[in-house]
């Protein structure tokens, strides 16, 4: 792999629409066509009603910082060159039980090691940005 970063298989049947969405600058969540239950991560069947029918609903891309870590070596080489860096979990504004893992960046195209971890606070509001790595657009987060 050229970049050395671990990346998703963006052609997987169950998850491809999510990654197609990020490539268009949209944060999508699966919503059941039958009962409207929203689920993350994506999967074929609705755990609330067992429907196989779903739509992909755009989200506002706003959320709050639910938790975070600061990773230090030993790490895979591509990641180690950025360490220490943060990894965050975001609770989405539409439903605080919908969460995504990402990174807090200082600029839309900024690296994952630019925000001073000492300034990070659980509960602070964030908004999504999309950063391209190879052919994947990863959702990352900036302070609002």
């Amino acid at each position, binding site marked *: 792999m050229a970049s050395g970063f671990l*990346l998703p298989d963006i052609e997987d049947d169950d998850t491809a629409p999510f990654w197609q969405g990020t490539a268009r600058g949209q944060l999508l969540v699966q919503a059941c066509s039958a009962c409207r239950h929203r689920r993350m991560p994506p999967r074929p069947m609705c755990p609330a009603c067992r429907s196989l029918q779903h739509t992909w609903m755009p989200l506002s891309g706003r959320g709050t910082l639910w*938790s975070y*870590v600061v*990773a*230090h070596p030993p790490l*895979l080489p591509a990641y180690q060159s950025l360490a*220490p860096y943060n990894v965050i979990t975001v609770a989405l504004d539409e439903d605080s039980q919908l969460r995504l*893992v990402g990174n807090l960046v200082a600029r839309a195209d900024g690296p994952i090691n630019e925000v001073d971890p000492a300034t990070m606070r659980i509960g602070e509001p964030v908004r999504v940005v999309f950063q391209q790595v190879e052919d994947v657009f990863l959702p990352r987060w900036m302070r609002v």
Partner: protein
Amino acid sequence: MDTTIKDRTAIVGIGQTRFGKGIEASELSLACQAISMAIDDAGLAPSAVDGLVMYSMENGREVEVARNVGLGDITYFGEIGYGGGAGCGTVGHAAMAVATGQCDVAVAWRARKRSAKGSRPWANVNQRLGGATQWSRPFGLLRPVDEIAMLTRRYMHEFGATRDHLANVALAFRMHANRNPNATMYEKKMTREDYMQARWISEPLCLFDNCLETDGALAVVIVSAERAKDLKQQPVYVHSFAQSIPQQHQVMTNYFCADPLLGPSYACARLLWRRSDFQPKDVRVAQLYDAFSPLIPLSLEGYGFCERGAGAAFTNDGALEWPNGRLPTNTAGGGMSEAYVHGFNLVLEGVRQMRGTSTSQVEGAESCLVTSGEGVPTSALLLRR
């Protein structure tokens, strides 16, 4: 008719290789050595063994173990998944197989060479990620320690836990290892200052919040309670057993369910105690899965030794320490200071506590709780003497 397995089987043999780094023997060889020792400890012949249960992550296969150790015709074999969650599960499945007559002498084991760099399961960079890991690893949440650190930070935020609480855990287990000549950290003392000054691995977790990386193998032999009476070791009964995959659980990165801090131990504990004559208040010694120190407060809560959110404070005042703590825990040193063999060493220490042969023996304990991985589909045993 009582259809549960309560007290119907017993662990009658234990065996373990030495623990170390860079041990030359293969995992298969280590497995065969430990199994052979366990069979000898039970005073049985290899040909008597007719049941095998192993971790699905085990590299050696049942057929190879059977051909090496010279086992008899195997009539029951099975595997338990999810890595560190499997340990008590292998023993429980063996007990169920013996209790239901699918085999008479069952062996459960774990062999692992974890010290080799290539053995790090998160280090495979050669393919695109499918399944659950695609939602976390691209962002640099690479290792098990990162995945648990995310839950730890949230736990600290919600319940006021601090690094001092995690140090309580690490120091208690190190003290126990300092009394156990077989422990990796037998000769290495640790102070609270050592803990606080250790390098970060994944904040808020430091080096000493992590388990060891160990080569070694351990095995147990399980037979019916009736047969156990005629064998040479004091029987250690499998009193209660449970497993759990809680609702909407995701392995390790369990961030996507309603309440991620309600870990697998809660669901496991409900069945475990329902099947048991003992309750948490009766239990005076425990072996709790400790790949990472924060799993201890989470497990103390999940298994009902304290209220939710009180697990960190439970560790104060030496509560986990032998001999005077409320609940001496990981009395051989656990995964953090004895050896990390996917938690199977905790099963053997549970057996020693019930035999009365631990190097930190809790006098008068009638039962011992043993748990497997918190944060993954898990399992637990309540052993009794």
